[in-house]
């Protein structure tokens, strides 16, 4: 069912947004997110744990949009997304620790390194389809996990490694004391805007917001390019796509590369948020499956769906943690994470049974109700 007016001209067909009102709404929402929220969060006036939740949501959004491009649009079901996040996270750690690169150089580089791994994996998708591909990517999680764990120069083994986020280029980072590293790190100086002081968390929120918005807009625009349309064509049937003259292998490679670029960026962000990374947890099969859950809850195939799913996941975590306080659960051996897992497992199942189009489907139904009102 269309949830927007029927296009009546070419300009109408190719426009990016839904007209001036939609544009105004997005602008206001954007301003609130980038101005009002940090101001409100500065000085700790909003419960500080929600800053962490917001940052986690941004990381999830970038990762989920990446997986959406690969699994939702191009139809290459991947259970290996966590492995690419891990590659990005440890790339970020080592680029800073070995070369003293600032975070704004590390961010794209971590993405590129992860993308390179993704492109190397892509050939598996040439011969394999559907569930077989899913199992291979699942195997890759184990393989990459093993390699990272054993490659102690890179990952620090089971102990893990610090992930510094330098503000500028740093000379000779290997001989710096932890104190000096912290001095050169992101968020040392509080930002002051109109009497409100913003600490590291809030600064990180602002920076990540820009990254997240850029990632979403880029993905949305990629979908409108020749490559994006080709990806969607491959997603709905790769043999048919190849008959149409689409170079399927090239498209699949691009999709893997792009998706793992996003994952790498998300991994680097994850590292900076935590300031310290180990391989497992968090980068295990469960994380991969959580990403799959996000794009499914949100609604497959749209950027909006991935964003909604990621936000639901990140904000649901503290809410589900509240459940852990319930009397019959408090004394059990269940950890907070287990309850989160249970709640999300149940949510995904309910969504798959009753609303296969996800949050995005609910959203478009609500929208259609208002656009076509009073017609039912």
């Amino acid at each position: 069912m269309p949830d927007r007016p029927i296009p009546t001209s070419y300009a109408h067909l190719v426009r990016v947004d839904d007209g001036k009102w939609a544009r105004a709404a997005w602008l206001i929402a954007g301003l609130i997110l980038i101005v009002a929220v940090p101001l409100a969060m500065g000085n700790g006036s909003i419960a500080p744990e929600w800053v962490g939740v917001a940052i986690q949501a941004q990381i999830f959004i970038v990762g989920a949009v990446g997986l959406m491009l690969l699994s939702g649009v191009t139809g290459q079901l991947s259970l290996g997304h966590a492995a690419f996040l891990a590659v990005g996270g440890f790339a970020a750690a080592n680029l800073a620790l070995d070369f003293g690169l600032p975070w704004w150089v590390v961010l794209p580089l971590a993405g590129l390194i992860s993308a390179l791994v993704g492109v190397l994996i892509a050939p598996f998708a040439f011969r394999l389809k559907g569930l077989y591909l899913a199992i291979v990517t699942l195997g890759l999680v184990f393989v990459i996990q093993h390699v990272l764990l054993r490659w102690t120069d890179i990952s620090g083994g089971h102990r893990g490694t610090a992930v510094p986020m330098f503000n500028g280029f740093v000379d000779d980072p290997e001989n710096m004391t932890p104190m000096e590293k912290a001095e050169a790190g992101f968020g040392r100086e509080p930002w002051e805007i109109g009497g409100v002081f913003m600490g590291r968390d809030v600064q990180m929120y602002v920076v990540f917001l820009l990254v997240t918005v850029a990632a979403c807009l880029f993905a949305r625009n990629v979908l409108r390019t020749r490559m994006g349309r080709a990806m969607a064509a491959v997603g709905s049937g790769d043999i048919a796509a190849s008959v149409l003259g689409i170079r399927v292998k090239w498209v699949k490679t691009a999709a893997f590369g792009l998706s793992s670029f996003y994952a790498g960026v998300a991994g680097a962000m994850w590292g900076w948020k935590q300031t310290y990374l180990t391989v497992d947890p968090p980068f295990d099969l469960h994380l991969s499956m959580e990403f799959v859950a996000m794009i499914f809850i949100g609604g497959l195939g749209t950027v909006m769906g991935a964003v909604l799913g990621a936000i639901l996941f990140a904000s649901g975590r503290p809410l589900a943690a509240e459940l852990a306080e319930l009397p019959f659960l408090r004394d059990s051996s269940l950890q907070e994470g287990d309850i989160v897992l249970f709640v999300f497992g149940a949510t995904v199942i309910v969504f798959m049974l009753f609303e296969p189009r996800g949050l995005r489907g609910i959203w478009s139904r609500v929208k259609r109700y208002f656009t076509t009102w009073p017609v039912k």
Partner: protein
Amino acid sequence: MTQFAELTIAGLALGAIYSLIAVGFVMVYRSSGLLNFAQGEFATLGAFLMTTFAAWAVLPWPVALLLTVLVMMAVGMGIERVIMRKLLGRPPFIGSIVTIFVGFLLSVAVLWIYGSSTRAMPTPWDPVKIVEVGGVEFTLTNLVTILVAIVLIGTLAFVMQRTPMGMAMRAVADDQEAAFALGIPVERLLGLTWGIAASLGAVAGVFLAMFPRSATVAMGLLAFRAFPAVIIGGLESPVGAIIGGSALGLLQVHGEYYVNPHLGDFGIGFHLVLAFIVMIAFLMIKPHGLFGTKELERV
């Protein structure tokens, strides 16, 4: 040589467990075209139920095992009835994804009921008993595991090939619509398939938790480790599942002993990954496994 033979028997015993899990995968895949990621949780739940029945309720061992199998059959059929049946007619990968989350629910349920501690699996025979045949020593548990797997999978193969019920199940696996048109109760048979898959998983779990291992929540991961077996054998063939399972068990046990030490630090735990590497290489050469059939695709 003796050592090689001993490792081979240990590998075959592990392979027998993998085969049981893999046959569970194949049952569900053949009948409904979806991959049941919750199979490992069936094993975990089965193993814990067995400890409850045999150690806590002190039932005789065979009765406890039978009870475990029956309860797990009910669990499998229940999951099919409540969740999977609603997904009939939807693309198979949707159903497969749903099973991942069914697995999550089961694993949390096990954790909630049994906690995170490990439990020893009772056995009617002495769990450390060593059998010696011609200088080759192995535990009695390994021998029983192999025998049980052979008997169970053999019975299953007989039922599938020779009985009317098995014939109907194969018809459903072949073409659900055509089976429906013939008056075969497709839905009931799908439920039965899930029940059988769950109870096979439970038996695998019971034997996997025996000495020197024990029942833990982490056993659910095992099903993911069994994937190479299903892939190498092909998703559609029970025979393939047995061969794939045995190959996987042998690969892991021999790999741990003969390959790991040569890799230095990198070799620690490498045998678990080795199976996946072999699986990926194998898929490159034969994308449908040894006994899988190539799908013809309609555009």
